[in-house]
C-alpha cells in the first residue's frame, strides 16, 4: 500500500498537490460566502414578512442548495472514490423523503 516512488518525485508531487489544494480552498471560500449569502437571503425574506406562499418554497430550495454545497464542496462528494458515499447518501435521502412525506401528508388531524 505504501508509496514506493523516490523522494525527488515526491517533492514534485507535493508541490503539485499543494497547488491543487489551494485551488480547491479558493472554491471552498467562495462556497462559504455563497452559503452565508443564502442564509441572509432566507432570514431576510422571513423577517421582511414576505408572503408565506412565496417564502416557504424559496427558503426550502435555498436550504437544499446549501446542503449540496456542503456535500459536494466541503465534504468532497464530487471527487473520485465517492461513488458509494453518494449512492448511500441519496438512498438515505430517498428513504428520508418518503418518511417526511408520510408524516406530513398521511397523518390526520
Amino acid at each position: 500500500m505504501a508509496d514506493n516512488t523516490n523522494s525527488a518525485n515526491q517533492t514534485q508531487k507535493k508541490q503539485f498537490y499543494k497547488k491543487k489544494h489551494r485551488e480547491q480552498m479558493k472554491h471552498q471560500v467562495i462556497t462559504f460566502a455563497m452559503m452565508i449569502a443564502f442564509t441572509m437571503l432566507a432570514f431576510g425574506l422571513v423577517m421582511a414578512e414576505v408572503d408565506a406562499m412565496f417564502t416557504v418554497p424559496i427558503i426550502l430550495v435555498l436550504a437544499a442548495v446549501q446542503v449540496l454545497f456542503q456535500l459536494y464542496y466541503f465534504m468532497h462528494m464530487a471527487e473520485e472514490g465517492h461513488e458509494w458515499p453518494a449512492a448511500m447518501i441519496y438512498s438515505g435521502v430517498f428513504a428520508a423523503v418518503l418518511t417526511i412525506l408520510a408524516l406530513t401528508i398521511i397523518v390526520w388531524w
Partner: protein
Amino acid sequence: MAEDVLKSGNLPENPERATLEGRNKFMGFWFFLGGEVVLFASLFGTYLALRNSTVDGPTGQEIFGLGLVFLMTVILLTSSLTSVYAMYHMKNNDFKKMQLWLGITVLLGFAFLGLEIYEFVHYVNDYGFGFSTSAFSTAFYTLVGFHGAHVAFGLLWIISLMIRNRKRGLNLYNAPKFYIASLYWHFIDVVWVFIFTVVYLMGKVG
C-alpha cells in the same frame, strides 16, 4: 506495514484513504451518515406532524427569536469552513495549522452550543415553554436537542483527537480519524441548515 502507519511525515495525497483501514473508516462513516439522514428525517417528520399541536402552550411564531438563530447559524457555518481549513492543512501535511483550525472549530462549536443552551433556558423561563408543555414543545426539543447532542458529541470527539495526537503529528493511522470527524462536523451543519429553515424560519412564517 503496521508500524509505519504511526510514522508521521511523507504522507500521500489522500492520507485518510491511503490504508485499507483508512478506506474502511472513510466508507463506513459515509454510510453511517446515510443512515443518519433517515434518523433526522424521522425526527423532522415527527416535528412537522406536530408543529401545530401547541395546545395551551406558546407557538413557535410567538417565541422564536430570529436574531439569535441567525447568529447561531453563522457561527456553525463558519465552523464548517474552519474545519475545511483544517482538512486543507491536513492534506498539505501541516499538522500545526490543522490543530489550530480544529481548535477554532471547537471554539465556534462551543459558542453555538452555549447559545443553544441559552435559547432553551430562555424559552423555559420566559415563556413557560418546557419539554412537557405540548406535543409541539416535545417535538421541538427532541429535534433540536438531538442536533445539539450531536454537536456536543462532535466536540468531545474532536477535542480528544486533538489532545491524543498533539505530540506526534499526523500519520496514516490518525489521518482517517481526523478526516471522518470533520465529515461528521459538516453533517451536523447540514442538519442545522434544515433546522433553521424548517423549524425556525417556517415556524416564524407560520
